[in-house]
């Protein structure tokens, strides 16, 4: 499966994409300049997400900054993954899902009419919990997205570059024709990251990307994230608090209310949240007193 293979959209291909034009070219045009660290990529305004009548996340107000790693933590069932999947409209694929409030992506409402979810998912890629390479060669796994998108440049160079950025090139350059599934779990996950990078996204969402990996492979992914942060904005959901502490710049703590809806308790610079949280619930959660 691939986010790029989302169900065909009913709008004609020429549907104007509501996302501001500047962001379309930002991965190339803006790279040489130092990124403004305070630039907001996502702004959530009273954002809620429902599955049928059940409200999974409730009235979230939050800003995600560019070129940062933002970790979302919280107890099981608090809506972390739901929230993450809202960032690239993956929840659209669930028939009963609907949203309330807004998510602004570079100032544009992601859920506004006329926004093409396929284009949204190209710009905002996702890496999943379980490494899920296509049953294809390593090369084709990375080349797949660009091909579908009608890429007409030097595909081999793009594949190499993506694999290099994912810190996988040296390990696979001599066996690009081998199946992606022949790699180890950690390598497969980096292959999935290379695949996400190949379509030049702006944001990479990661949903528990290390929960199937051993500790060393986990550290590799975490250090890789820090390299990728130079170029992309990363949002990661993790039930591993220590991972959030190690690998993120900002930590967002969600918990579940009496209505079982997830809500935001605290969002703070990671080193602050883990040394002197301001909310008592955060303190209790990170010290293992509940959750």
């Amino acid at each position, binding site marked *: 499966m691939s986010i790029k293979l989302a169900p065909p959209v009913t709008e004609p291909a020429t549907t104007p994409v509501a996302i501001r034009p500047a962001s379309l070219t930002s991965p*190339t045009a803006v790279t040489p300049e130092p990124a403004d660290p305070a630039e907001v990529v996502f702004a959530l305004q009273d954002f809620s997400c429902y599955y049928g009548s059940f409200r999974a996340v409730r009235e979230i107000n939050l800003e995600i900054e560019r070129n940062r790693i933002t970790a979302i933590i919280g107890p099981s069932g608090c809506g972390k993954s739901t929230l993450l999947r809202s960032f690239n409209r993956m929840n659209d694929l669930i028939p009963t899902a609907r949203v309330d409030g807004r998510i602004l992506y570079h100032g544009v409402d992601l859920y506004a009419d006329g926004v093409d979810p396929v284009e949204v998912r190209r710009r905002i890629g996702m890496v999943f919990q379980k490494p899920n390479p296509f049953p294809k060669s390593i090369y084709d796994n990375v080349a797949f997205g660009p091909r579908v998108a*009608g890429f007409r440049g030097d595909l081999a160079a793009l594949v190499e570059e993506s694999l290099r950025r994912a*810190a996988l090139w040296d390990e696979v350059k001599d066996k690009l024709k081998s199946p992606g599934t022949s790699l180890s779990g950690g390598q497969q996950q980096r292959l999935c990251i290379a695949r996400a990078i190949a379509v030049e996204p702006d944001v990479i969402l990661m949903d528990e990307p290390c929960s199937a990996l051993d500790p060393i*492979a986990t550290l590799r992914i*975490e250090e890789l994230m820090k390299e990728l942060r130079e170029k992309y904005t990363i949002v990661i959901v993790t039930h591993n608090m220590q991972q959030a502490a190690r690998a993120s710049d900002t930590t967002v703590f969600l918990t579940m209310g009496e209505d079982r809806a997830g809500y935001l308790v605290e969002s703070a610079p990671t*080193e602050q949240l*883990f*040394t002197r949280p301001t909310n008592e619930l955060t303190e209790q959660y990170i010290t293992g007193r509940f959750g």
Partner: protein
Amino acid sequence: MSDQDPVTTQQPDPDPEIEVASATDVGETEGGGVDTRATLDRELRAVKDDVLRLGALVEVALERAGRAVYERDPDLADTVRWDDAEVNDLQRRVSNGISVVLATQQPMARDLRELLALYHAAAELERMGDYAVNIAKLAQQLASEPEIPLFSQIPIMERLCRSQLRSAMRALVDVSESDARAVCANDDELDRLYDAVYRGAMDLMQADPSRVPQATHQIFIAHHLERLGDRVTNIGEDVVYLATGQIEDLN
């Protein structure tokens, strides 16, 4: 989707960081491109650099305090007193930095011992800075009193303290157990010199009660230097702990 945008025309630009990282990880069969310790190593280095800087500040403070005594220079003594704020700020920064590394990086084994040793060393250095301030205050006292000869052991103690401090900091950088033990062993000399000042001052006070204030102040100076030396040996013990995992009393 719109026609492919300029993204796709991008030239591959080899990421130098990734290249460098792979060079440090030779021999790995998997994940050779990622240095799994990069963040922890960087943060440890930053903490260690700050502790070394703290050691350098204290050494300067001690040298100036000594000179303020020898040259009867109350202004120089004032600079020691003022600059101690810098020592305190830096020590707080080290404590903060270490608590962040502990909270975020979950250091284990040697990394954990190193941070604990650095934390303690920084606290000892801060205290040594206070001794330098005390000596500077005594220099101002002495300068306001009729001059009497300085006990010859005091400049020797002051120089020895500085060289001991330097050796301890070097042992900390190199994690050298043997150098650390040598530092601790040298402390006996400071104790011996202090005893000599103490006995000399007692004799002087008995012989000439008019010199009691100056002699007392010199005893205090020697006492602070002796205490400062004890703090240096504590850092030596930290280094031994860091190197071996064993806590020993070497003083």
